[in-house]
């Protein structure tokens, strides 16, 4: 008898099932019909079923197991506790905000993402370097936006920093890095990379939380404290107090309102096979008992196509609409379109 390795997780979508191998960080797909059949058999496979066995075994998903031992491999607990008040603090580095960086020193923060743009001054870069040299985080993420002109100065100042430094270069600026440390990583980005994060932490966290808004704090160039760049509500200003206490911010009952909105509770997303690996910055809106997004995703789970792929059609083009908190679609028409897209 064979069964799936316990590091293999399945997410059933509208057209297909996503298979996530958390050890190799690979994803595979198989038909929903196969998922249903496997479910009936408690996800155990008899080798005599050659077609299914060969298909799954070739992908390295199966382990051989004797009848005596089959109950000895328990399912992994797919919940995660992040032992930090803030998982990511996103900080727009301006002259004004940088003067308040010292107030963050004693906070329980896992990692930072500093935004460099036209509001970032030379003085603020110096204050930033002082801060990262003293803060406890092992990883610092730097994001460059249009208008940032001091990259040469920045890299000169951080050349001896030994922390892991992640770079998001959205401004397309030339990076001249004199450091010889191999601790710098440039995140390439594209439409898919933006929306998906294929790693185990993300997979676990998405079970009960929104992986973009959960445990995030955003401080803008004017020192205003928000949950994220996309949210409107302001929960204080770093300039106003001599110290910063995140516990005070969290006491506000609405600050965490988006943290626990799961993709399972969101129309369209709940039909998507990528829902446990997705990072989505669109603001969810509640209509009756369901959450929806006003803006469409760049992946359409009903035809299994990304927006950059041939044959992509938007939900609107397919007459898939959310009305009064429910999803309406013509499944027969959709089936015809999907057949046409994927045949031949």
């Amino acid at each position, binding site marked *: 008898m064979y069964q799936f390795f316990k590091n293999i997780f399945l997410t059933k979508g509208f057209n297909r099932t996503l298979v996530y191998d958390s050890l190799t960080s690979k994803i595979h*797909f198989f038909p929903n019909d196969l998922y249903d059949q496997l479910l009936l058999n408690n996800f155990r496979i008899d080798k005599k079923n050659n077609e299914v066995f060969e298909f799954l075994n070739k992908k390295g998903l199966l382990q051989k197991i004797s009848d005596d031992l089959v109950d000895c491999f328990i399912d992994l607990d797919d919940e995660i506790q992040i032992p930090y008040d803030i998982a990511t603090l996103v900080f727009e580095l301006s002259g004004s905000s940088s003067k308040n960086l010292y107030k963050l020193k004693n906070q329980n923060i896992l990692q930072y993402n500093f935004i460099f743009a036209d509001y970032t001054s030379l003085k603020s870069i110096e204050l930033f370097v002082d801060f990262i040299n003293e803060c406890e985080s092992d990883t610092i993420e730097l994001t460059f936006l249009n208008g940032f002109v001091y990259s040469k100065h920045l890299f000169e100042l951080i050349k001896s920093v030994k922390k892991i430094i992640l770079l998001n270069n959205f401004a397309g600026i030339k990076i001249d890095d004199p450091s010889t440390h191999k601790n*710098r990583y440039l995140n390439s980005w594209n439409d898919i990379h933006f929306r998906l*994060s294929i790693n185990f932490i993300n997979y676990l966290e998405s079970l009960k939380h929104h*992986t973009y808004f959960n445990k995030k704090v955003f401080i803008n160039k004017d020192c205003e404290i928000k949950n994220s760049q996309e949210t409107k509500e302001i929960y204080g200003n770093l300039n106003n107090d001599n110290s910063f206490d995140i516990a005070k911010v969290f006491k506000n009952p609405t600050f965490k309102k988006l943290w626990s909105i799961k993709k399972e509770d969101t129309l369209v997303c709940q039909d998507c096979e990528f829902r446990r690996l997705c990072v989505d910055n669109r603001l969810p809106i509640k209509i009756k008992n369901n959450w929806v997004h006003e803006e469409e995703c760049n992946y359409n789970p009903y035809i299994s196509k990304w927006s950059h792929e041939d044959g992509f059609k938007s939900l609107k083009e397919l007459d898939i609409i959310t009305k009064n908190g429910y999803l309406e679609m013509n499944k027969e028409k959709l089936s015809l379109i999907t057949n046409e897209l994927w045949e031949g």
Partner: protein
Amino acid sequence: MIYKIKLPIIIKKIQSTEIKEKSFHEIESNSLQTKKHLAREIYPRQSFFPEKK
């Protein structure tokens, strides 16, 4: 239990697109000291999206 499943051709094609983490994190190497993917090893995900103009 022994069962036989016919995988429809259409679904075989849909399932055929495999995506690996590596392809998302290929690093362009210029003056940066870089190595393959990995990078976001502590809390790995996109935490900031530039505003659409």
